[in-house]
C-alpha cells in the first residue's frame, strides 16, 4: 500500500513537472527573435481585418491576398483613377489594330535576386496560366487571347499560346481572337496578371505549382518590398527591396497587422497602426466613424468605391417584372443608408457606382413609395398569401441589419416574408439551386463594364435565372466591341433594360472610411491605385 502510494505520488509529480516543462518549451519556441532593425529605420503598420489565404500571385481570389501580394509583386500597369493607366513593370501596353498587343517592359526591372525581368518571364507566366493543369484565378483574364477557351485555358496537351512571342528582351507580343477594347486589356491583363520568375519556377510541374513553397513564402519577387514572414492571422512582415527599379523605398520595415474590425480604431489612436487597409479588407465600422473623426492624430476621409450590395430576385418564382419593380418601390433604401451607414452610402439601381464611367446618369434610382408599390402589386395580381423566401448571408453586419429593414418594408405593403440566414458557402449552393425568392449578395467587380458573370444566362452569379435574349445579345456585343464610345452606348441600353426587367437591384454602395495617421507624409488607401507608388510612402522622421 505504502509502496503504491509513493509510486503514484512520484508519477503525479512527474506529470506536473512534465506539463510545466511542455509549456516552458512552447513559450521559448514561440518567443524567437523579432529580426534586426537599425535605429533610424522607418517602420509602418497597416491594419487589416481579412487574413490573406496565400501569396500565389496567379491564384489568389481573395482581395486580402491580392493586396498583400502587391507589396512584393508588380503588375504591368496600375490604374490610378478610373481607366487611367500608369506604367509600372511595363512602360506601356499598346495596340494598333485592337487585336495585336505589345507589352514593353521597363528595361531596368529586376527580380529581388538581381536577375533582369525579361520578356521570357512574361511568356512563361502567360503559358503557365493557360496550361490546363495550372490552378489559377486569372484564367478568365486571358480568355480573349488566341487559342484559349472561356476559362483561359489551352486544349489538353498544348503548353504554348499561339501568337504569343518575345520580340526582344523586353518586348512581348500577343494576339486576341477578336478585336478587344484596349482598356479591357489594360485593366484585365495590365493591372491583374502578375509576372512570375521563370528561373525560379521553370522546373515546377504546373499541377504542383499551387502547392509549391514559393506560393506560401515567395523568395524572389519584383516589387518594392520583400517577403520576410507571415505569422498566420497576426501579421505579414516585409522589408524594403533597396534595389527596386522604381527607386529605393523610403520605409524600411512594412507590416500588415491582422485584427478584428473593432480594434482598428483603438490601434489608430494608440499609434500601433498608421492606417487601415480599408476597401473591403480593413473596414472601420460606421459606428466608429464619429470616434475616428475626433482622433487628433489621424486624418479621416470617406471614399466612394465600386463594390455594391444587391438584392437578387428569383425570376423563376417571381416571374412578373412589375412585381419585382413593386418590391423595389417598397424598400426604403435611403433609410438603410441613413440608419446603417450614417449616410455614407450611394444609391444606384444598377451595378455601376458613380466612380464608374459606364454609369448611365440619366437613370434616376427608383424612389421609396409604398403606396405605389401596393397599387402595383394589386394591379399585377400578386398573391398576398404567398410567403416570400428571403435568404441572407451572414458575415456582413450591415447587410444582415439591412435585411431586417427590407423585411419590415415588404411586410408594410402586405407581402409575407420569411427571412433565413446562412453562411456564405450555403448561400452559394442555395443560389445555384434557385432555392430562394429574394437573396442578398454583394460584389466588387472590375471597372470594365462586362458583367456577364452576373447577368448572362449560366453566369456564375446569375442566381436570378435571368434569361432575356435581348440582354444576352447586348452583353455579347458589349464584350466584343473594341470602341469605347460604342461600348458606352451598348451598356446604356443594357442599364435601361435591366431597369425594366429588374432581375436584380443594387441596394447601396457603401462608402469606405479611410483613416491615416498624421505621421504619414505620403501614402494611404485610395479607391484606385493604392499601391501604385509604395516606394514613395513615407513617415515623419522622429
Amino acid at each position, binding site marked *: 500500500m505504502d509502496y*503504491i502510494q509513493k509510486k503514484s505520488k512520484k508519477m503525479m509529480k512527474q506529470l506536473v513537472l512534465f506539463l510545466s516543462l511542455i509549456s516552458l518549451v512552447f513559450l521559448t519556441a514561440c518567443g524567437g527573435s*523579432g529580426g534586426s532593425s537599425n535605429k533610424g529605420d522607418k517602420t509602418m503598420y497597416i491594419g487589416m481585418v481579412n487574413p490573406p489565404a496565400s501569396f500565389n500571385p496567379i491564384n489568389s*481570389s481573395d482581395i486580402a491576398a491580392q493586396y498583400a501580394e502587391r507589396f512584393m509583386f508588380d503588375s504591368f500597369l496600375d490604374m490610378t483613377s478610373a481607366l487611367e493607366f500608369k506604367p509600372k513593370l511595363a512602360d506601356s501596353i499598346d495596340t494598333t489594330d485592337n487585336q495585336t498587343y505589345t507589352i514593353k517592359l521597363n528595361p531596368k526591372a529586376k527580380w529581388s535576386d538581381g536577375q533582369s525581368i525579361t520578356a521570357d518571364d512574361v511568356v512563361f507566366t502567360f503559358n503557365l496560366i493557360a496550361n490546363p493543369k495550372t490552378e489559377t484565378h486569372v484564367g478568365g483574364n486571358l480568355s480573349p487571347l488566341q487559342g484559349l477557351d472561356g476559362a483561359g*485555358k489551352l486544349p489538353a496537351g498544348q503548353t504554348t499560346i499561339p501568337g504569343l512571342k518575345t520580340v526582344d528582351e523586353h518586348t512581348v507580343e500577343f494576339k486576341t481572337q477578336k478585336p478587344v477594347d484596349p482598356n479591357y486589356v489594360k485593366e484585365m491583363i495590365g493591372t491583374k496578371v502578375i509576372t512570375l520568375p521563370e528561373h525560379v519556377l521553370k522546373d515546377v510541374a504546373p499541377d504542383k505549382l499551387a502547392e509549391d513553397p514559393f506560393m506560401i513564402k515567395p523568395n524572389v519577387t519584383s516589387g518594392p518590398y520583400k517577403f520576410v514572414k507571415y505569422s*498566420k492571422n497576426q501579421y505579414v512582415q516585409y522589408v524594403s527591396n533597396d534595389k527596386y527599379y522604381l527607386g529605393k523605398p523610403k520605409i524600411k520595415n512594412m*507590416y500588415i497587422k491582422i485584427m478584428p474590425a473593432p480594434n482598428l480604431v483603438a490601434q489608430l489612436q494608440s499609434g500601433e497602426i498608421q492606417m487601415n487597409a480599408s476597401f473591403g479588407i480593413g473596414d472601420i465600422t460606421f459606428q466608429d466613424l464619429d470616434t475616428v473623426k475626433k482622433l487628433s492624430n489621424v486624418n479621416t476621409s470617406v471614399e466612394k468605391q465600386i463594390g455594391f450590395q444587391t438584392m437578387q430576385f428569383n425570376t423563376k418564382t417571381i416571374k412578373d417584372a412589375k412585381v419585382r419593380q413593386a418590391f423595389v418601390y417598397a424598400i426604403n433604401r435611403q433609410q438603410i443608408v441613413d440608419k446603417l451607414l450614417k449616410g455614407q452610402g450611394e444609391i444606384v439601381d444598377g451595378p455601376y457606382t458613380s466612380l464608374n464611367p459606364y454609369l448611365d446618369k440619366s437613370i434616376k434610382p427608383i424612389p421609396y413609395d409604398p403606396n405605389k408599390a401596393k397599387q402595383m402589386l394589386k394591379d399585377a395580381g400578386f398573391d398576398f398569401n404567398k410567403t416570400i423566401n428571403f435568404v441572407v448571408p451572414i458575415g456582413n453586419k450591415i447587410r444582415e441589419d439591412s435585411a431586417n429593414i427590407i423585411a419590415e418594408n415588404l411586410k408594410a405593403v402586405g407581402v409575407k416574408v420569411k427571412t433565413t440566414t446562412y453562411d456564405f*458557402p450555403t448561400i452559394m449552393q442555395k443560389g445555384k439551386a434557385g432555392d430562394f425568392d429574394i437573396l442578398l449578395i454583394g460584389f466588387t467587380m472590375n471597372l470594365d463594364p462586362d458583367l456577364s458573370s452576373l447577368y448572362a444566362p449560366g453566369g456564375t452569379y446569375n442566381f436570378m435565372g435571368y434569361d432575356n435574349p435581348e440582354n444576352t445579345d447586348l452583353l455579347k456585343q458589349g464584350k466584343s466591341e473594341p470602341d469605347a464610345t460604342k461600348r458606352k452606348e451598348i451598356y446604356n441600353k443594357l442599364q435601361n433594360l435591366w431597369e425594366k426587367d429588374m432581375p436584380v437591384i443594387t441596394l447601396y454602395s457603401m462608402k469606405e472610411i479611410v483613416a491615416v495617421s498624421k505621421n504619414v507624409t505620403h501614402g494611404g488607401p485610395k479607391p484606385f491605385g493604392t499601391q501604385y507608388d509604395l516606394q514613395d510612402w513615407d513617415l515623419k522622421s522622429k
Partner: protein
Amino acid sequence: MFQYIIRRILIAIPVLFGVTVFTFFVINMAPGNPVDMYVNPSATPQQIALAKEQLGLNDPLWVQYGHWLGQLFQGNLGFSYSTREPVTSMLIERLGPTLLLMGTSLIVAYLIAIPLGILSATRQYSWIDYLTTGFSFLGVSIPHFFLGLGAIYIFASKLELLPTGGMNTLGGTTGFGDTFFHMILPVLVLATGIAGNMVRYVRSSMIDVLGKDYLRTARAKGLRNFIVTNKHALRNALIPIITIIGMDIPLLIGGAVVTEQVFQWPGLGQLTIQSIGSRDYSALMALNLIAAIAVLVSNLLTDVVYSIVDPRIKYE
C-alpha cells in the same frame, strides 16, 4: 496492465476509422463547396468547372475518401483547399500556441480549483464556502466571449496595462516576457471557466468522502486534521476529479474556439472556424482526426491513472 493498454489501442483503430468515415461524409453533406469561396466574382462558369475538376471535387465521394485515406497511410494529410498549403504544416504552426494557452490555463485552473474546493468542502456552509460556490457559479455561467471582451475593455482599453490580443508584439522586443503578457488575459478568461467547473466537483466529491467512516477512524486514531483531509480524503475524492481532468485534456488540442477568436490567438480553434467558413475539407478532416485521437488517448490515460490512484481498480 500492459496487455490492457495494447488492447485499448487496437480497439481505437476501428473507432478512428469510423470517425473519419463519419466526419468525411458529414462535412461533404454541408451545403456549398471549397470552390465557392475560392474563385473571384468575375470568374467564368468554365473557370469554376475547371477549378472543381482540378481539386478533384467531381469524383464520387467514396473515391475522394479513398484518396484521402491512401494519403493518410503515407503520413500525408493533404493540401488545404483554401491556402494550398500542406495541412501538416498548418497544424504544426497552430498546435504550439494552442498547447501553450490551454496547458497554462488548465494548470492555473487546477491550482486554483483544487485547494479552493477542498477548503470549501471542509468549511461547508461557512462564508468561504458560499463565496467559493458563488464565484464558481459565476465562472461557469458567464460566457467566455463576454468575459473576454470585458477583460479587454478594462485591462487593455481603459487601464492600458495589457495587450488587446495576439501572441507577440510586432517589431518590438519579443520573447518569453512578451508572450507572457499576451497570455495573461486569455488564460484568465479560460481558467475562470475551467476552475469554476472544477471547484464544484472537488467540493462535492470531498464532502462525500469526508463523511465516510474510515475518516472518522483516522481522526479517532489521532491523525492531524491536515493529513486526514489532504492525504486520506483527497486521494479517495480524486476518482471523479480525474474523470473531469480526462475530459478537459482534449480541450488542449481542440483549442478554445471562442476565446482564441476574441483574443486573436493564432491557435487551432481559430483555424477550425476559418476552415468551416471556407469548407476546407482537408483541414477539417485533419482537425477532426486530431481531436478524435486526443479524446481516445486521454480516455486511456484516465483509466490508467484510476488504477494508480485507487489500487482496487485493476485491469486484466
